[in-house]
């Protein structure tokens, strides 16, 4: 692997660090373990002989590496996942000129969405993150989870149903103070 290729790979791989960190938090539910898992993922990726081209599905490949690394860690650990209060900051680009009250309500809504996702059983939480947060296709999710695409569809359907049950009453309460646009 040449230095030019390494530089191109490194630059492309760095673009997914936020997504990988979010997925690592979903898997581990622990900020320190997520930090370690992200680093291990990049170590494995840089040492892999079968790196995909930066313009192919690099993101999916990195997610597969992360999930395999996490499963490997689980096999060698006695301790179960730890729960931790996560630092939920504003997402990048969230700065706005909007009414502070509306901004507050939207922030509250995001918090409630995140809480609802966090409250899902692991398999449901993971598939919601892969599809609705990270935007993977069903086939890509099937590759990451190493399961048939049909399983992805059915699991995603059940996960969303649970999420809807947990989310809708909360969103309605938040939505009360929003503009018509907010209720669309």
């Amino acid at each position: 692997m040449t230095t030019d290729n390494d530089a191109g790979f490194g630059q492309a791989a760095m673009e997914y660090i936020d997504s990988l960190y979010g997925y690592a938090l979903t898997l581990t539910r622990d900020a320190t373990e997520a930090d370690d898992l992200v680093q291990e993922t990049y170590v494995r990726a840089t040492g892999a002989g079968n790196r995909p081209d930066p313009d192919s599905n690099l993101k999916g490949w990195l997610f597969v590496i992360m999930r395999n690394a996490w499963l490997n860690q689980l096999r060698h650990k006695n301790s179960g996942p730890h729960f931790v209060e996560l630092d939920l900051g504003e997402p990048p680009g969230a700065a706005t000129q909007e009414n502070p009250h509306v901004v507050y309500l939207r922030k509250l809504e995001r918090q409630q969405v995140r809480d609802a996702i966090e409250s899902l059983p692991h398999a449901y939480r993971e598939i919601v993150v892969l599809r609705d947060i990270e935007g993977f296709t069903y086939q890509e999710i099937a590759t990451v989870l190493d399961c048939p695409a049909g399983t992805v569809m059915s699991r995603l359907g059940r996960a969303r149903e649970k999420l809807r049950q947990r989310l809708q009453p909360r969103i309605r309460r938040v939505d009360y103070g929003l503009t018509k646009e907010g209720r669309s």
Partner: protein
Amino acid sequence: MSQCDDIREWLTLYLDDELRGDERVTVESHLAECESCAAVFSRERSFLKTVREGGKLYVAPPELRAKVQQMLRPSRRSRFSWMVAAAAVLLVLLLPVIVWRVVKQGNQPEKGPAGSFALMAAETHLRHVRGQLPLEMESMSPQDISSWFVNKVNFSVKLPNYQESSGQEKLYVLEGARLVNFQNDYAAYVAYQMKERPISLVITSASAVEPTGGEVIAARGLVFHYNAIDGLKVLTWKDRGLTYALVSDLEERGQQSCIVCHEGTKDRDFIEPLKPH
């Protein structure tokens, strides 16, 4: 099943952009005509919009970002990985020859007292064999073991896939790894088996200790120190910023078999000059 039932089963697929061509057209046409399904579609779209906008809140901490960027820096990473991998490959290439030579000369008097690292490695090997030092991770995968040491030791451990890549019969198997204490810091311990006999490899930074003592033999630009400690054959050497110790109690016969295997491979040219005279 009515057309509405069919369409509602497809709504999620449509919103997930999993439909193509005629299927998309069918859904869109139906939604344009059916208020009931359009209302269901609108609710589902609103729900997914809420989830998708609300869920993405995580940003990698700056410290993590900096560490990964450092890791991905091409010049340093490539060079260092290559160096450590080359040292590890060299270890595997030399293993049968050197241990055979140690066995041959095992009864000869030592040329100097064993160094502290060699003593620690021998002690660690014995404790592991006695079951007093269990492995912290068990794996036959060099990659898994290399990854496990990341952030646990202050140097890079990268074990090669030498046997797999050479295509020859497996002469040894990896068992796993753990951390061991050496001079108030951690050293890397890797356990192998060769023909059901244990082999230990201990690695630390060359800044922590330099190999000393024993019989000194230079080969292929490296200086190896051989010691016989408590019936064990201990080989230490330094290469590319790391100090290694290899410990075994392999019998002469087994090592000769290994040499025969290596002599039949592409490594012959490399190994031939290293044979003991």
